[in-house]
């Protein structure tokens, strides 16, 4: 095809012009037309349903994970503190009392089974 014409020869020039002061005049006209009216605000974007579900799922998973980690830390701390307290209490007993406890509970059916 003969590609004699090239758009670059014209660019974006228009063969006619706009009157001087046109845009100032139009703006004034429009503002006068709407001056007694109330403009509603543009709405906020509505997230797509799939995006909302994904965000909700991630938030729930993060909450569950956080609760699980907190619970795990609490359990470990409590167990450790409990064992140490018992050991400390046993150590505070006299030798006689310690021997007595060991004799009594060595044969305890509940502890040893």
């Amino acid at each position, binding site marked *: 095809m003969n590609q004699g014409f090239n758009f670059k020869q014209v660019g974006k020039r228009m063969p*006619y012009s706009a009157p001087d002061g046109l845009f100032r005049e139009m703006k004034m006209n429009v503002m006068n037309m709407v001056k007694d009216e109330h403009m509603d605000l543009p709405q906020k974007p509505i997230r797509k349903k799939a995006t909302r579900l994904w965000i909700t799922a991630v938030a729930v998973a993060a909450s569950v994970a956080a609760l699980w980690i907190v619970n795990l830390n609490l359990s470990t701390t409590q167990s450790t503190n409990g064992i140490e307290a018992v050991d400390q209490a046993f150590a505070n007993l006299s030798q006689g009392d310690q021997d007595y406890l060991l004799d009594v509970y060595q044969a305890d059916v509940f502890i040893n089974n």
Partner: protein
Amino acid sequence: MTTTEQSLINTLRICPEAGFRMLMDQYQEPIYWHIRRLVVSHDDAQDATQETFVRIFRSMGTYQGNGSFRSWIYRIATNEALRCLSKRQEETVSLESETTGVTLIADNSLEEADKLAAKLQRAILTLSPKQQLAFNLRYYDELCFSEIARVADSTPTSIRQSYHVAKEKIIKYMNQND
């Protein structure tokens, strides 16, 4: 949505009047020329441009933030241009029409020194409304095909096709006609 558009929308929410003035400062010139390229007559272009911004003011609450703000504005402007053409010709002109029925008539408003620009406008006016829209918005306003598709309520593929067909027809017209 671009940062500039988001900034404009934020201003509209915080201070509607100032935001609307900003919107007019930013868009009234490109919108005027977009409409004028379709309707040609300055008086019709001025009326349709003013009506466009009044409609934007009144329907701002319907803009949902889906798609670019610019394409929403151009869509309103395009509908105003088509309404103007329909009124002038006393029959409905739509993007599906075969022609807008508008021609470029030589008068005092035409710059004698720019006959090539005038010929290009004549070439564009031989196209169907949809092809004119696709070409004008891409060539003059540099909208992407997705945005033009939103303006025309069409698909990017269809708009891309319309644009390329329009270009070919224009080149053929410019090479054949004096």
